[in-house]
């Protein structure tokens, strides 16, 4: 436990020094708050930017606050997933490649401790970024549209966070399988994108899929509760994530070259 805390602390300090604690939250905040702002100012934007003929009437129904938040979540789903994968792709591969892993593993550190320290720290950074971004978006939504209850907002955030946990788990597992950061990112995106695609194509067979978390989180906002299979999705996501991390730790043990 002490070893785990030491490694975890090291990860946090590293992310602070290499600026991950700065760029990831900022990127997310930009993605997040652009949604309510763009929605609110859409008529003005169209008016000043478009070469509309005289007298064109554009009527855009004002979305509700819940709808704005829900569309923010779908923004997070595409660019957000990419950013999280990019942020986490190098955490193991870099240390493996430059050899600094050696001086950690010559000490009594177990693969499990090493992997979980990476897992926890990446999850913490990602969820804090998400929280800051989503919180600010909520603030602007309340200002510009109708107020959304804070507990609804938090519930949808909590459900959506599980998707982040899953993203990080996949990336960490691939980090123990592949050596190049680019490969890790590519394959992670492929898996996550494939899962999302499969979940929307074969809904009947993918009721369990973690990719459904987004629609579950939207449902919390728009309909006030989980869709059917909500808990199934939550539990499979948690179970799969733990499984991926366990496999990652086992796989890490087999490394020939630390």
């Amino acid at each position, binding site marked *: 436990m002490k070893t785990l805390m030491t490694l975890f602390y090291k990860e946090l300090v590293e992310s602070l020094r290499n600026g991950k604690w700065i760029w990831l939250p900022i990127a997310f905040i930009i993605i997040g708050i652009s949604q309510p702002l763009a929605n609110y100012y859409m008529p003005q934007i169209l008016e000043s930017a478009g070469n509309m003929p005289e007298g064109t009437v554009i009527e855009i129904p004002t979305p509700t606050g819940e709808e704005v938040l829900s569309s923010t979540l779908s923004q997070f789903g595409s660019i957000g997933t990419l950013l999280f994968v990019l942020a986490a792709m190098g955490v193991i591969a870099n240390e493996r490649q430059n050899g600094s892993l*050696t*001086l950690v593993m010559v*000490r*009594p550190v177990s693969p499990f401790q090493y992997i979980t320290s990476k897992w926890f720290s990446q999850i913490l950074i990602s969820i804090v970024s998400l929280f800051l971004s989503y919180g600010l978006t909520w603030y602007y939504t309340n200002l510009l549209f109708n107020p959304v209850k804070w507990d609804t907002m938090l519930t949808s955030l909590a459900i959506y966070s599980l998707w982040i946990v899953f993203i990080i788990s996949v990336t960490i597992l691939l980090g123990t399988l592949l050596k190049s950061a680019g490969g890790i990112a590519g394959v992670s995106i492929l898996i996550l994108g494939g899962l999302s695609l499969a979940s929307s194509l074969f809904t009947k067979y993918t009721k369990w899929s973690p990719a459904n978390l987004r629609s579950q989180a939207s449902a919390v906002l728009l309909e006030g509760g989980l869709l059917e299979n909500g808990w199934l999705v939550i539990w499979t996501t948690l179970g799969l994530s733990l499984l991926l991390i366990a496999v990652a730790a086992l796989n890490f043990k087999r490394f020939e*070259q630390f």
Partner: protein
Amino acid sequence: MVMDFDYPVRQYDWADSLFRNWKKKSVGGGNMLLEVRDLSKSFKHHQAVKNLSFDIEEGTCVALIGPNGAGKTTTLKMLAGLLTPTSGTIQFPGEQKKDYRYLIGFLPQHPAFFSWMTAKEFLLLAGKLSQMPKSKLTSKINETLEFVGLLDVKNKRIGGFSGGMKQRLGLAQALLDEPELLILDEPVSALDPNGRRDVLQLLLRLKDHMTILFSTHVLHDAEQVCDSVMMLKEGIIKWNGSLLSLKKNHTSPAIRIKTAQRIEHCFNDIPGLEHIEYEDAKTAVLYFINRSINTDLLLKVILEKNLTLLNFEQLQDSLEDAYMKVMNQ
């Protein structure tokens, strides 16, 4: 040929402060620290290490010598617990735990650090991971940094360190928790002559306090620090024993004679001669079969033939010759 390498004897008063608090090692007690049996390691395409068996006695200093690709690094990495052996056992008699990494300090060939850390922060991380008590850690870090001569840069980023400084920091992290066995993989190969001398001197100091196993392909380094050598070639131990017995068993005595005149064929009739090598027409190296050389006889021959003697030198046994002999066996 042996170059006499005289160290300017520097006073390492501060080193004593490092050792003062160390637990006493029973040096030379004849206890086995490490027992290795039938150690093998195969990679996909080749077998790097083949059935190594050896013991390391407590308090000794052993050099692992061999050409590049002999399996030195693989062996050391297995001992350090970084590679899993394909077969065979590594045992520390008296240690029950399966994970013996806490007994070992390891310096890899190219130590890589987290470059965003400072030297002090890195040692702090290393100490914590080795479960060192927090109360002792800070003073220990300072002592160790002083020992390797990095105390004045302890708050500088490792990213800006030179190769020699990194090597010394690597040594510091290996020493930090007073390991029973210090394993160093090519500790001086990448260093300039100054850095090399510094590190070798540190090793000489450490020798009295812990068991050291280090690999090198430079024989001279081994000779300066160690009392016994293990020679490895293609994953097999070619020689394991003390340096003295190696020299005795594998070198032949020789004498070099240089004169002002040509001396071809002058010494053909000397008894006990193995063969003669002519470095040039006026310089000959005479190799003898056994060690008792009748120098009087040689001088007599020189006088008889009216040769002007410029140089008469008994060649010392060279480790290099012994090495070549063992390796080409």
